[in-house]
């Protein structure tokens, strides 16, 4: 059997492991944080889907949850946190403010977190129900399993193949802000 068969099977296995062991970094700035707490607490229990632990260091996390409004002044901070996370990494915009700016249209609110960082899944709602956030997590897990998370796509573009382990870090991304 060709080597590519084994490498693709290995990537599938690794992606299967990745999707059930997401370590989240909650970037909580606003009232959506309440729904995030409900999501995390026993009633909805995001831990059932393997995304149990919030790691309050971006270096230990691979899922960035942007929960709440992002202001222009926070933009460089958010970008820096995203850059500190190790590959592969994924981003969920939690709520309309993080997705589009929501009802804010003023001199200080940023129209969506995707202005400064790439976002995989957008969750609508003001705030979203915990079920919506769980739905977004399942959607993200499907993408991770298919290798379609944006950081996986980036790795494929840069390295030409799906990287089964985090052994290869994309370091040649300097200059992109």
């Amino acid at each position, binding site marked *: 059997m060709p080597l590519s068969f084994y490498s693709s099977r290995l990537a599938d296995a690794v992606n299967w492991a990745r999707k059930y062991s997401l370590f989240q970094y909650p970037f909580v700035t606003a009232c959506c944080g309440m729904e995030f707490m409900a999501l995390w607490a026993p009633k909805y229990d995001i831990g059932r889907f393997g995304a149990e632990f919030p790691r309050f260091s971006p270096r230990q996390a691979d899922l960035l949850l942007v929960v709440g409004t992002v202001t*222009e*002044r926070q*933009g*460089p901070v958010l*970008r820096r946190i995203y850059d500190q996370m190790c590959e592969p990494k994924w981003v969920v915009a939690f709520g309309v403010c993080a997705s589009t700016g929501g009802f804010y*249209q*003023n*001199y*200080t609110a*940023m*129209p969506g977190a*995707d*202005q*400064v*960082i*790439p976002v995989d899944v957008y969750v609508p709602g003001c705030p979203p129900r915990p079920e919506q956030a769980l739905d977004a997590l399942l959607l993200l897990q499907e993408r991770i399993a298919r290798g379609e998370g*944006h*950081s996986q*796509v*980036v790795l494929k573009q840069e390295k030409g193949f799906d990287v089964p382990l985090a052994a290869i870090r994309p370091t040649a991304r300097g200059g*992109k*802000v």
Partner: protein
Amino acid sequence: MAQLILDQLKAHFAAGEIIDTGSQHGNEWARVTPEAWLTVCTYLLRDPDLQMDMFIDLTCVDRLPREPRFDVVLHLYSVAKKHRLRLLCGLAAGDPVIASLVELWPGANWFEREAFDMYGVRFSGHPDLRRILMYQEFQGYPLRKDYPKEKRQPLLRRLPGSV
């Protein structure tokens, strides 16, 4: 009760420093000229019958297209005498400058910085007049009526084609 303050003010400043006075919902107000701003405030603080020793609030109102365009609004209260007063001062659109009150009430410091940040009113004599809420790179004054709400001043944006 505070009508007595207005009477005393009008008696003491008879040379046109007090433009107008009035009472609205039981709150007395006086409108003064920009030139008399500091002397009137000093008098309100120092006079033994007034003793406006508590600085409540200072803010600004943009009354576009009225001229004078800006109204600086000062709220004062006397803890000893238990009376309060609202002081207004109109400023021209071209170069809104008014005397700082930090010497009289140190608490005015951040309020004047906020009025400067949001409306561009400069307070001469302020010890540290810089933006307090917005970032230093911000251009313009966001609470002015002619500031477009769609205007973006990004500190950071993804470049086209970046992930």
